[in-house]
């Protein structure tokens, strides 16, 4: 269900952008999706295909999803590491004082249309 909510927020944003840029049809949407954003790409595309039919400007729009790998940085040793296999604890110095740098993105990168 979360994916459907995300799609509704996407559609709101896309409608605004289409109006601002005087587009009558969006043909493609490139989305950057973080690895730990909690959104499953397959479900997202299913929800998209259902919801776009109900939106004038998106009738022919294709959604392309690009995964953004999750990366964490350690505040103690300054090194970065992949979040998914390592979690909160820095594999270089074992510090728990780490912050997520990438991986939460649900970002509309570019759109194409006329």
């Amino acid at each position, binding site marked *: 269900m979360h994916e459907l909510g995300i799609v509704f*927020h996407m559609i709101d944003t896309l409608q605004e952008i289409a109006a601002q840029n005087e587009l009558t049809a969006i043909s493609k949407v490139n989305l950057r999706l973080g690895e730990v954003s909690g959104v499953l790409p397959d479900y997202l595309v299913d929800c998209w295909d259902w919801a776009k039919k109900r939106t004038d400007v998106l009738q022919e729009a294709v959604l392309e999803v690009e995964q953004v790998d999750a990366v964490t940085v350690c505040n103690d040793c300054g090194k970065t590491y992949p979040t998914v296999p390592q979690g909160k604890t820095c594999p270089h110095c074992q510090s728990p004082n780490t912050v997520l740098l990438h991986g939460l993105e649900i970002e509309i990168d570019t759109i194409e249309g006329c």
Partner: protein
Amino acid sequence: MDAIKVIQVKEDVRANNDRAADALRERLRDAGTLLINLMSSPGSGKTTLLSATLDRLSYELSIGVMEADVDSDVDAHTVASHGARAIQLHTGGMCHLDAAMTEQGLRNMGIEGLDLVFLENVGNLICPAEFDTGAGAKVMILSAPEGHDKPLKYPLMFEVSDLVIVSKMDVAPYFDFDLEELQKNVRMRNPNATILPLSAKTGEGMDAWCDWLRKAVKEWKV
């Protein structure tokens, strides 16, 4: 045929909602109404806690409650019978409330004269954490039977909450619930969170919770 235009957007899908939430928070600040976003798993004791809270505070504060549910309005009837102005919001299958839905609910309920409004969000520890509703404070409830390991499994919910209520403390011994371990796990995710163990059934911890609310309402109005 028109040429295809490529537009660089580079904007998070949640940015629109964040702007709407900030604007709503401003308006609530001007109105002097504190909105609290109450989040938890299903059945953690939100409605029971709100009823017990209303019994203690409805003589000194005007309180509204918006109950979000996929369907049904039993919770709204329950809190209304304890003295709140209450409405039910149906989310139509959505797993969280966003700022637009919250604003519409507030408009339908009417906030004139209210000091405090609780938004009982959809029962779920994941999605509500990601969407700012425009609330002035975020409170989550973890019930003791759910276990002290939950901050490790649902970190975002614990990171965004100003206050973590541990409910159903009366039954904690039956579930091998370790409060110290929980406090450690919460602090690791969110060093600034206040943690309040309580039981709506025995009344343990209810005074501290009511004091927290009184103070939050007072600070919101200045």
